[in-house]
């Protein structure tokens, strides 16, 4: 449902805005009890069968937005239970990051192949002929599928001349590239956290607004309110996300009006990573010491690749991700600052909780959460004067935002640094496709390759926390990239010389 504004989108954004407002206006913490009534006013249900359920679901979403856990459905607990603990200027939430609100879940049926009313009961009925399981029979002049026998191979779907047979999966499970969505005892979606890589595609796909991730906006705003030096690093996918008036320069200015003392482009870290990976590729892969090099900037992809393909886990780059590389630069220049990564991605929240990253990045918020902060603080891009041009990173680093951009940046760096080196590139978008690519690599069919993996189809611009439709975002990133005064990653003066 990306690119379509639905009541689900509206509710999600209202929740972020209200929590941000509550934090900026320093309301009593018990004020959270009033918010479900503010977001769902009146006495008549608008979205579901009754207004009490609507408010209860919004209540759970508000808790998650505060970084609090879901309440157990079978026990009495006030909505504000635990809010005192989370009102701190530091990360509060505990995993799991992505949560299914059980009573919001519609318990959609799991994968099934069904015959629709389009079936004409034709004389040929080729569906029956092609079924390898004899699962299709003709009953009362129509095809009927025996669900016990059906293996969902899809042959009947392909052959039906009336497009009468459909394969259907619950949207959250269909969006999950690592098959982490199962069912609880009531048939509702349940996430297997051993498999989940927190890409957030399920939460962006659930049409019942039953899946949400925990947020850190309340703690971040508390840190700003307490007068801490808070510095933002913003991922290159930000361009265009906040509407046509929000030029990159004005977004930087808007962030300062929100209370950030400075803003850095995460594309700086992308430049550093591209050059480091180019050297690594030339020294290790081109020499045959290492089979291939898989990029590491997308945490969902790299976790999936390392977990599912342990034999080749050492082929996944260990270069710092752009988020961490940029954070380390900032920490060097501002040792006492709290650093906030602002990006399109839910998985970065988990990456920032890793033992090795925890001291580098203090908070992670998404573009959608940031939009809630802009609205809560009444910041208007139209009211701002055009500020200083943003010129911290190269076009190559900014290109990391779109699928293909990471491989392009690294390849260009290899060509710049090692002009005689000839190599091949493969890339995949969406975890399902990434798995296919890694299966080939694991089998030795991608030796000598540079592999780019992106968990979200389209790349970072399609992350779960974005606002802009993907195609528009692609155009905006391209324009931002073209505007760069530096083009190749090696041109960035922050890139260190190779030791």
């Amino acid at each position, binding site marked *: 449902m990306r690119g379509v*504004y639905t009541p689900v989108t509206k509710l999600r954004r209202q929740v972020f805005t209200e929590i941000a407002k509550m934090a900026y206006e320093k309301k009593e913490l018990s004020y959270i009890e009033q918010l479900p009534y503010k977001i769902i006013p009146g006495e008549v249900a608008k979205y579901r069968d009754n207004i009490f359920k609507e408010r209860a679901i919004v209540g759970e979403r508000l808790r998650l937005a505060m970084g609090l856990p879901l309440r157990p459905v079978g026990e009495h607990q006030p909505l504000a239970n635990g809010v005192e603990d989370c009102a701190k200027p530091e990360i509060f939430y505990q995993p799991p990051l992505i949560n299914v609100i059980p009573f919001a879940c519609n318990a959609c049926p799991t994968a099934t192949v069904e015959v629709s009313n389009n079936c004409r009961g034709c004389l040929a009925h080729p569906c029956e002929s092609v079924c390898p399981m004899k699962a299709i029979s003709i009953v009362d002049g129509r095809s009927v599928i025996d669900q016990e026998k059906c293996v969902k191979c899809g042959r009947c779907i392909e052959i039906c001349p009336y497009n009468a047979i459909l394969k259907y999966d619950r949207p959250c499970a269909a969006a999950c590239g690592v098959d982490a969505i199962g069912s609880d005892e009531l048939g509702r979606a349940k996430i297997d956290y051993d498999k989940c890589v927190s890409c957030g595609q399920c939460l962006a796909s659930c049409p019942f607004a039953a899946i949400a991730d925990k947020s850190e906006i309340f703690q971040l705003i508390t840190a700003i309110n307490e007068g801490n030096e808070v510095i933002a690093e913003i991922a290159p996918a930000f361009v265009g996300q906040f509407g*046509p008036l929000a030029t990159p320069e004005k977004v930087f200015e808007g962030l300062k009006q929100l209370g950030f003392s400075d803003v850095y482009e995460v594309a700086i870290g992308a430049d550093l990573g591209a050059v480091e990976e180019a050297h690594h590729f030339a020294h290790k892969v081109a020499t045959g010491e290492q089979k291939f090099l898989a990029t590491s900037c997308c945490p969902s992809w790299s976790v999936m690749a390392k977990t599912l393909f342990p034999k080749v886990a050492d082929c996944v780059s260990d270069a710092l991700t752009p988020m961490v590389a940029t954070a380390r630069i900032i920490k060097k220049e501002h040792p006492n600052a709290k650093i906030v990564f602002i990006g399109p991605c839910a998985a970065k929240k988990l990456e920032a909780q890793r033992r090795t990253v925890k001291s580098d990045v203090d908070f992670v918020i998404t573009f959608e959460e940031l939009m809630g902060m802009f609205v809560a603080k009444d910041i208007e891009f139209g009211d701002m004067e055009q500020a200083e041009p943003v010129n911290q990173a190269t076009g190559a680093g900014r290109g990391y935002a779109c699928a293909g951009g990471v491989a392009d940046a690294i390849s260009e760096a290899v060509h710049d640094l090692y002009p005689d080196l000839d190599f091949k590139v493969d890339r995949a978008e969406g975890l399902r496709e990434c798995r296919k690519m890694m299966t080939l690599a694991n089998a030795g069919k991608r030796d000598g390759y540079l592999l780019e993996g992106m968990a979200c189809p389209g790349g970072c611009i399609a992350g779960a926390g974005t606002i802009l439709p993907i195609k528009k975002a692609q155009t905006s990133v391209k324009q931002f990239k073209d505007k760069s005064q530096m083009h190749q990653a090696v041109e960035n003066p922050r890139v260190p010389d190779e030791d």
Partner: protein
Amino acid sequence: MKRLQVQVCACNKCIMMGAMEIMENIESLKKLKVQLRLQTQIDLIMDKKICGDLSDDAAPVVIINDEVIEQATPEIVMEKIVKLTQRK
């Protein structure tokens, strides 16, 4: 050819409440010129805040010629545009 001016508010609140998606939907109408029998040129503008004096709940705001639509949705806006632009 007749012209229809459609303005979509570009303020933060309207963007957050779906103004970009409304814009997308209006743009998509241009591709359905033949199917919808459109005979009017749609001038789509989204370059400033236009919801200034309206209440906080008005977002997103769209103005079609001089008619102000509060809490606009893609379906309401597309329906109005199609009605105003279709050949009789």
